[in-house]
């Protein structure tokens, strides 16, 4: 089971209004986004929800980062991972 976990995101807003996330903060830890691999509207199939889905690379792993209609960022997190912290 996956949870929709809202996260704090630092992002760059360029002069054309394009938003590029640069880091994610989750439970006090900050993860730098090495690269944004893709961006498109999409549903969050595992945790539920919908928004602009950013496919990002953090270290060697790829993950999805969503920006929802209320301008909140969230990630899909395995329930076990969320409970273990």
């Amino acid at each position, binding site marked *: 089971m996956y949870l929709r976990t809202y996260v704090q995101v630092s992002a760059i807003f360029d002069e054309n209004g394009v938003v590029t996330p640069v880091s994610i903060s989750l439970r006090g830890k900050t993860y730098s986004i090495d690269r944004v691999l893709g961006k*498109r509207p999409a549903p969050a199939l595992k945790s539920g929800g*919908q928004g602009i889905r950013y496919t990002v690379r953090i270290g060697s792993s790829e993950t999805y980062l969503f920006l929802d209609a209320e301008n909140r960022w969230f990630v899909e997190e395995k329930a076990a991972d969320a409970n273990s912290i």
Partner: protein
Amino acid sequence: MRTILHSDCNNFYASVECVFSPELRGKPIAVCGDPSERHGIVLAKSDAAKKCGIKTGEAVWTARQKCPELIVVPPCGEKYVRFSHMMRDIYAEYSDHVEPFGLDESWLDVTGRDGMEIACSLRRRALKELGITLSVGVSFNKVFAKLGSDMHKPDATAVITPRNYKQKVWPMPACSLLFIGRATMHRLYAYGLNTIGDIVRADPESLHTLFGKNGDTLYAYAAGKDDAPVMPISETDDIKSVGNSTTPAFDICDYSDAGRILYLLCDSVAERMRKKHFRCRTVTLWLRDTQLQSFTRQMKLERPTDLSADLSRAALALLRESWAADRPLRSLGVQGGDLMDIRNGAQLSILPDPLASRQAVLEKTADQLHARFGAEALYRGVLLRQDHRLLRAAPDSSLAATNMAAVSGRQS
């Protein structure tokens, strides 16, 4: 020949709920209003609920009888409107002629292009970007395109061409044609017109005699002669009517309660019309009794108005004409239609009406007081005679409000 698409979001409300709660997928779910507010009817259901025989519009308790494991989800209008707008943004990438038909359906005119290909692309994008499925009908007119979208569900495309419509459309039941309500359906069946093909094979003059102008329309629809255009996007944004309806927590049994509720509804409708700079030329009263039978009555006004006093006078006259207080009412609604935008100038009366001018000042002052101090800062004296249950029926109150046509993009 035109190429018209009709796109229908499958089980729209229920599908949107599943996007946000994936654990609901595949389960029997129904989006239902709150039974304690007497809004406890099924607004939408999933395919699994449909298989149990649950129907849109039925009471929650009967739905639970049919399917004890039914998961009831409260509606979230904001979410559905947002998904509807996102879907319309996608449509707008394919055509500048997109005509919505409710939140979950739209026609698109894609004449000159491959309708089948566009239909498949729309379905793919709806699933990929929003997580919902569509049924799309492709045809040469709006009526057949709509029939096409009803043919296969969910997530399917049906094509009805001038070559195949006799095989595909004519065997369908007559009631599947657009705008055929329950009353017309029963009359058609009584005359032995059970299928769409039966309507085409009937004598057009007899249809005219039996159904009047509607008979001509029925024949044209059945024969594939519908030439109604798909409206351009800019025009479909036009507001056609402003209305409000309410289902109070009690049955309305006499004129006195009905009248008070009508005053409240008219106040709300008039205030919204003034805010949008509209005046209406017709007033429609909508009534629904406790057997859930609905009917509407309409009246043309002598002059366009945005005053609650004029609306309530007309609505009360319609109420007296159409209801003898012989059966309790469950819901009431008032709608101002045939709107005139007064920003482009209003027709002045040759004979000034000082009473109307004073009423206008009074109602505009009430608007300002409501804006500054809230809806309960000022209300009608008739409400003081009653207990607070009527105030709960106030359309502006968040407790029991439902919009009938709200600020609708189509005439209801």
